[in-house]
């Protein structure tokens, strides 16, 4: 590894933070990364990303199931600090397709990349939402009846996505759309499958998994079903969400509050 002279100091800093443990990674990251986290750095970082990273991670950084490159717009699975992101970009991940960035890429450019990647996640500290999270919690548990279909930290119903960390993967605008236009951008996991068996009986449930030869669903009574496609008469995909549109039933302020509550749901909360 070749470090540029200007950043040689970062080596002992990183080692101190990572190995000795006197500094936390966060402390080291703040000291190092803050030098390159302006708006200009973010734009520069985006340029570096498009050139060096987008082929695998996608132009929108949302990953690519063909290359196996992960989505970088939510919580990162291999790093959760600036130093961690820097280290992965610099060193790669051994034994995977994540190669180290070129030694000839200066450290400041790597930090700009870090800044850009971090910017892809919405930091709640930087956002002033119109709603109140505590009021949103009341809507969630009360007239929204959200808990009948969703779990938060192990409590709630099963038919909908677990929302314990939904604030890490959905930004406030996306959450509002989820509440008021639930069919938009519905992931295939939440399609409904209607299966007609050979005897004509019908089983319907949410699409947990489907492949070329089989499919698996969970029905309204939380029963798990697995079918071999050639053993059933037919199956239909219903690509509409089972979640109600809350636009007509909740007030605008209720929805704002609910968005604030959902956006607060993250690992730290």
């Amino acid at each position, binding site marked *: 590894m070749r470090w540029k002279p200007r950043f040689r100091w970062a080596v002992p800093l990183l080692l101190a933070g990572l190995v000795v443990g006197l500094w936390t990674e966060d402390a080291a990251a703040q000291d190092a990364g803050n030098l390159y986290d302006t708006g200009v750095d973010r734009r520069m970082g985006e340029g570096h990303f*498009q050139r060096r990273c*987008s*082929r695998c991670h996608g*132009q929108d950084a*949302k990953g690519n199931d*063909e290359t196996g490159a992960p989505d970088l717009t939510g919580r990162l699975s291999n790093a959760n600090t600036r130093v961690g992101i820097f280290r992965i970009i610099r060193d790669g991940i051994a034994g995977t397709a994540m190669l180290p960035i070129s030694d000839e890429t200066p450290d400041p450019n790597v930090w700009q990349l870090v800044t850009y990647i971090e910017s892809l996640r919405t930091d709640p500290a930087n956002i002033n939402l119109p709603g109140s999270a505590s009021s949103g919690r009341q809507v969630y548990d009360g007239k929204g009846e959200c808990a009948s279909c969703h779990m938060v930290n192990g409590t709630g119903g099963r038919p909908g996505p677990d929302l314990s960390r939904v604030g890490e993967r959905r930004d406030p605008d996306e959450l509002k759309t989820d509440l008021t236009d639930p069919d938009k951008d519905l992931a295939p996991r939440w399609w409904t499958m209607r299966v007609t068996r050979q005897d004509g009986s019908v089983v319907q449930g949410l699409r947990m998994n*489907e492949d070329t030869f089989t499919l698996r669903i969970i029905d309204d009574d939380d029963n798990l079903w697995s079918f071999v496609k*050639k053993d059933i008469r037919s199956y239909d995909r219903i690509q509409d969400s089972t979640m109600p549109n809350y636009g007509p039933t909740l007030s605008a302020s209720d929805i704002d509050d609910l968005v604030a509550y959902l956006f607060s749901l993250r690992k730290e909360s």
Partner: protein
Amino acid sequence: MKRLAILVLVLASGTLVLGQDDTPRTGSSTPAFSPVTWDRLVNAADEPENWLMYSGTLDSQRFSRLDQINAGNVDDLELKWAYQIPQIDRAETVPLVVDGIMFVTEAPSNVVALDAATGRQYWRYNHELPDDLRLCCGRNNRGVAILGETLYMSTLDAQLAAIDARTGNLRWVTQVAPYQSGYSKTAAPLIVKDRVVTGIAGGEYGIRGFVDAYNPETGALDWRTDTIPGPDNPDVKTWAGESWRTGGSASWITGAYDPDLDLVYWGTGNPGPDWNGDVRLGDNLYSDSVLALDGTSGNMDWYFQFTPHDVHDWDAIQVPILADIEHEGTTRKVMMFANRNAFYYTLDRETGEFLVGKPYAKQTWAEGLDENGRPIRLPDTFPTEEGVVVSPSVGGGTNWWSPAYSPQTGLFYVNAYDGEDRYFKRDEDYLEGENFMGGGGVRVGPSETYQSAIRAIDPATGDRKWEFPIQPRSTAGITTTAGNLVFSGSVDGYFFALNAETGEELWHMSVGQRVHAAPMTYAVDGKQYVTIAAGNVIFTFGLRD
């Protein structure tokens, strides 16, 4: 020297070492492995117990005459052995089998020799790699070539390595191109007479592509044919200004060869930068083309460009399939080519004449093909800064996944995808060793919302005869057999067999991880096996004992 002398003698005499008897060599009854002469490679179809090259035979049909496993008993297949590749990556390899020994390449650039009947190891060769590789698309290796007693392997640091097939010892290694500039190598070479023909990867790094032929004994370069014309070639005018210097046109998959015509056929990749054609106005020859090269000199006999001035990254990196078929009442020597741009083509392989062309997957970029096979482009399909939605997707109607052709059914089989992407362009300067793409593509919807299928095409008409839907999609190659079978796999982790005439599903096995490679089949001690790489594992199946 003694071994070399024997090899030269064998090559010169053209002795069919295995062909002298019908008993496949194994390690127990007779010594495993015997030298692979050029005659054996020319007549590889006559010894179907072996799989002697990446696509099985020089015509790349991926058709095996083995029929012990057939449409009537394929549901009796069971797992015989599995080999775990120690590197965590995506296996894209097609093993070779020579007289009971299987040669398997692994990520990043390693090869092992296994007993083909048991999956147990003879030897291993680990290629030492630098830690500053430039790779667009993962640490892949797709297979080796063999001539005599030597294996030839591409490496990620753009080297060609010659490895002793009996021991795994390195015989020689030659640097094909500087990896620091973005060149790399992933595809299996192709033996053409007494030369090792091989391509190059790096089309996303502003390289200038070529096809090379090397001396199998010394590693010396015999000929190089550039896939982008230089200043001494009038076709350089198809590149604006100096853009030919960084125009890509890589050659990153294995080609085919016709011994009668002495022509090597090789596909070329996208022009660079991939998505911003503004800096390289013109047709950008010979990118996105198939080249017919003289097997002795490497001189270009003809070329056919599928996508002039490509701005969607639709490489013509598909394996050309050669066959003689009836077309409009006459027997023609043809090439079949299902292109990434979603059109299927049948070409006359002697002349390059366009015979047939039809979409085999969803496409929204061309009104059709003209009488010469040139696409008639639709307006507003070039990438923009805001993005424009076009089919097929960046990954294409198909990609490098090997198609197959059965002379029994007369059908061409291809894995097709009816996807779409939003295409963007951006300004980007060339920097040596850095990505040079000028844009990209973004998914519009999840892959589950698009159609994916194995499609059987009549090469005389381009018409679809059947399709087998796949959910969500496939990125695997295909192999077909005299047992009336089509084998392939899918990203949902299945390996399966279809009826080659009808497309009916006959057997499937969950192998637990994405199948990204092509199957192959062979026999040892009279028993047929079929092998597929899935995830990081080589699975081998045979009929129940």
